[in-house]
């Protein structure tokens, strides 16, 4: 047992830092650190930079063009990207669809779609949830009926993140309704330019617009866009969930939030003294820092087990729960640290040429909105309640 980074790992970290120093523009980093919505342009720019370096597919297997990093190296890369304020790699194509295509897609699908998600041809979004099927995903109703060499899709998807920027969507659709709900679901790829698709924005409570509803009316999709076998889509979706361990705990993001909060606690005043000297605040901060140190090791333990061939267990669900709550707790404590300033909703301070007063420190001008926005992380991707169901099912075996 040895938790210390090897010299090779330390050299690798240095390489990542140098890359970020030279390639990541300051204005993008500033917006990411301030938790502003990341624009389409920033994401595409950053994908291109990473792609050029060959790191966009950092967690792909080497056989599919990945870089062959160890889990620890992947972890270091994520940590440093978060610390530097790099835009998050858009997960829908590269981290969600790609593993499914690699495991279950045809050779043609792999050769067609994988390069396109790397070079920026395709911006993928996800069509899983429906208005009546949130936690109970398997009850989804959007239907795909085979007619010759097409499926005809009718129904509605929702919570489609950044669908407004996307040209492609992967969907779970019902291809059989005369069986157990899970047994009649298929996994299909849909070009959003196909006639009959309408994307409508959903405004979130923080005023932002990052999720959408997608309406399908007689949308004709070639059968070649079916991934794997018909009616096996649920298996593929579950495969993804259980294998999602990299990055799921958001240790890098939380680490960056810890560093930001520590800096803030030195400049904010409470009772005339630095907030860092306030015992209740200091205790809250110490609690989160300790929790994060523990999580970092928990995460690495899971990755280590994974790389040594441990089968899928409840670990992904645990990482998701702890990681999402910890990230929320950092946003919560940051909000508290702002005092009355937390009331201010002043994203205008980031606009070019703004020269009015700042209520909160500049990188905090969007913080309260971000706090509310981040309530989502314990809801999406399988709510924490669903994750607890999964854990108990696996552990109690009932």
């Amino acid at each position, binding site marked *: 047992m040895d938790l210390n980074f090897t010299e090779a790992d330390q050299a690798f970290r240095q390489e990542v830092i140098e890359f970020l120093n030279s390639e990541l523009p300051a204005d993008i980093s500033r917006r990411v650190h301030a938790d502003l919505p990341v624009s389409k342009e920033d994401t595409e720019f950053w994908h291109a930079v990473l792609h050029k370096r060959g790191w966009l597919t950092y967690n792909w297997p080497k056989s599919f063009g990945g870089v062959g990093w160890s889990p620890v190296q992947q972890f270091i890369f994520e940590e440093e990207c978060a610390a530097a304020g790099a835009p998050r790699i858009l997960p829908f194509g590269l981290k969600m669809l790609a593993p499914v295509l690699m495991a279950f897609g045809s050779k043609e699908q792999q050769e067609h779609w994988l390069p396109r998600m790397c070079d920026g041809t395709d911006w993928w979004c996800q069509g899983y949830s429906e208005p009546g099927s*949130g936690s109970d995903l398997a009850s989804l109703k959007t239907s795909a009926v085979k007619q010759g060499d097409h499926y005809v899709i009718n129904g509605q998807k929702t919570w489609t993140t950044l669908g407004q920027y996307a040209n492609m969507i992967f969907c779970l659709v019902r291809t059989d309704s005369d069986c157990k709900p899970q047994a009649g679901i298929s996994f299909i790829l849909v070009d959003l330019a196909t006639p009959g698709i309408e994307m409508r924005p959903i405004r979130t409570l923080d005023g932002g617009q990052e999720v959408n509803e997608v309406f399908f009316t007689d949308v004709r999709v070639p059968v070649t866009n079916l991934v794997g076998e018909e009616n096996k889509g649920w298996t593929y979706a579950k495969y993804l969930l259980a294998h999602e361990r990299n990055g799921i705990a958001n240790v890098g993001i939380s680490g960056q939030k810890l560093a930001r909060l520590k800096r803030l606690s030195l400049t904010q005043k*409470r009772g005339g003294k630095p907030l860092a000297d306030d015992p209740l605040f200091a205790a809250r901060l110490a609690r989160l820092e300790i929790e994060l140190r523990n999580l970092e090791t928990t995460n690495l333990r899971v990755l280590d087990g994974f790389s040594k061939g441990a089968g899928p267990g409840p670990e992904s669900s645990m990482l998701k729960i702890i990681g999402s709550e910890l990230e929320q707790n950092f946003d919560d404590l940051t909000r508290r640290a702002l005092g*009355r300033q937390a009331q*201010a*909703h002043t994203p205008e301070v980031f606009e070019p040429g703004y020269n009015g*007063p700042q209520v909160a420190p500049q990188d905090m001008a969007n913080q*309260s909105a971000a706090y509310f926005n981040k309530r989502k992380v314990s809801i999406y991707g399988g709510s924490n309640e669903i994750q607890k169901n999964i854990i108990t099912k696996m552990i109690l075996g009932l």
Partner: protein
Amino acid sequence: MDFQPTEERRMLADMIGKFIQNDYPLNARLAAGTSALGYCPEAYSTMAQLGLIGALFDEEVGGFGGSGFDIATVFTELGKGLVLEPLNDTALTSGYILAQTGQLKLVEQIILGQKRVALGLIENGADYDWGAPETLARQSGDKWHVSGVKTCVKFAHGADAIIVSAQTPSAPGISLFLIEASAAGLVEHPFQTVDGGNACEITLHKTPAQLLGVEGAAYPLIDAAAARATLALCAEALGLMERIKDMTIDYMRTRKQFGSVLGKFQALQHRVSQMLLEIEQAKSAVINAANDLQAPSDERNRAISAAKYSIGRIGCAVAEEAIQLHGGIGMTWEYDLGHFAKRLVMIDHEWGDQDDHLMRFAQS
């Protein structure tokens, strides 16, 4: 001991409830919250005409209420409607200071909704300390001039005047000054608040001002005004929580997943139960604070801090838990819950947050 509201207060509550139901649609509230003024002047005026401001003042100064339970009644009902209009910030709290310093004409106009007076006590927006202003007031002849910066002054934009706290060279304590909105040297920078509404950064440079009360002796008055403002906030939060409770119960009863309504899932049942009993405790805290508003200041402040702590802790928990129990729908702008939750959390950021009041209580 008697736990029943008086007939008058029951009628007052009903009247406010009806006003909200008939004349205060949430959509209009949300639109007003992002307008330049940050609220709806017509709604404010209507509420004044209905006597809602009068209920916050006692008869001696032209109102017909003014006790802790009057304030709690009004603001609980306003909370239920997510009412945005600044009855707390620019009427109750500043009005109390004006009443106590003999500005009865101005109080009358406030009660009628004809004037609004903002209150600028805070200079460091990270802090909750309203007892140590660095703003300086100087006297030359019988005229005062004030210089300094006040931050996060709620709904100051469009107010007729502002009360600010300041030091004076000639007295050790704090003094209060009344400044016309149009006074020379006053510059305001309005900004939006995340829960809808607005606030201002205010800069004063040798701005002419009128001393309120006795020079250097304002702290007990500020303290008493803070107690009223805090009670009103707590009562508002209670109203918000009552509505969030109703929405959550309703959602539990109707939303189906896995073939049953959510309310059939025991893990959610137990969390809803916990939420409900916490809200009962919050309600008791508000009752205690309302009851002790007239008590000697030590006792009053303990009850106020106990309430603000309780409301802060329980309110944030209720807001977060209700969103989680709703899932995605709770995250949307179109569904009411999120707006109630935002206001509820932001109440923890006014007049001292839960940690601040917990330590005030511990040290008292």
